[in-house]
């Protein structure tokens, strides 16, 4: 037996989108064909889940070329900061990035500043501090070992940059994290 079926592709697409967005508990508005506005911030994990979930049905989430490049720059910086070995020194970050991304440094640097409200240098500094925070909270490394690993010229340089960025010294930071954990465990 053959069943004749009529499919309204627009309705299928709309329903599929709605179902996936609702499954992820996102607050959204469908804006005509091919555009959805997400009325909240969305984590990259959720965005990935959404992308993969929709891909099965031939629905692709499009990003602009520039957004993709920004993401690549961030990924490259994060990969660099989280390298197991010692970090490249700050002055060679620009050649590291232009080699890796195959763009002139001036171009990626301008693009980055225009879109993310911060310079690449600042982002690297921020990420290094993030890495330091992670090492301070989860590793047995001493401040001098962390300073060496992240390629700061000296412990005072590391401490002062840390304090400069987050307003607390590495030791105070470590003490707060430790107390927070103790408080959580007491509950």
């Amino acid at each position: 037996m053959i069943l004749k079926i009529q499919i309204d592709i627009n309705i299928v697409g709309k329903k599929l989108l709605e179902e996936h967005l609702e499954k992820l508990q996102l607050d959204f508005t469908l804006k005509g064909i091919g555009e959805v506005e997400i009325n909240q911030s969305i984590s990259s994990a959720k965005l990935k889940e959404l992308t993969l979930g929709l891909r099965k049905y031939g629905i692709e989430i499009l990003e602009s070329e520039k957004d993709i490049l920004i993401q690549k720059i961030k990924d490259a910086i994060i990969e660099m900061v989280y390298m197991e070995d010692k970090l490249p020194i700050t002055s060679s970050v620009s050649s590291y990035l232009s080699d890796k991304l195959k763009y002139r440094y001036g171009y990626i640097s301008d693009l980055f500043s225009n879109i993310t409200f911060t310079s690449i240098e600042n982002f690297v500094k921020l990420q290094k501090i993030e890495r330091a925070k992670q090492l301070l909270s989860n590793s047995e490394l001493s401040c001098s070992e962390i300073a060496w690993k992240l390629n700061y010229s000296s412990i005072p340089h590391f401490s002062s940059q840390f304090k400069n960025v987050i307003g607390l010294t590495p030791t105070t930071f470590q003490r707060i994290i430790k107390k927070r954990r103790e408080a959580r465990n007491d509950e």
Partner: protein
Amino acid sequence: MQNDSIFVLLADDDEDDRLFFKEAFSNIKIKTIVKTVDDGVELMNYLTQTGNKLPNILFLDLNMPRKSGMECLKEIKKLEHLNDVAIAIYSTSASEQDIEDTFVKGANVYIKKPHDFATLRNLLEEVITINWHYQTSGLNRDGFLLSL
């Protein structure tokens, strides 16, 4: 996602401070929507009522009548639906002890209220920019501490 505006909520009983705060946000680069409430009770009512839009970042005055900022902070940390809200303490006092206590209780940012408008604007811009990085760059929120 890069162009979304950030929803900022302030709980402060001082009317002038609320005005300055709103004014400061009207001239920073990142797009924001700012809402204010007058004290801790009003704040907790807002945060616990279903259907209300939750802030990306909450600025909390420590000294408020009816319910203090510290009490709000403790309650907020017990509410799971508020896990993703960054909390900035916005206070006139800045004793080392206050700062450390609020961080231990789960605050992310501590700002001592500055005396002039230009400094306020710069501080708030810095906080929002860093918070924005936490929102968009997948940084670990557990380590989000900032004292200004």
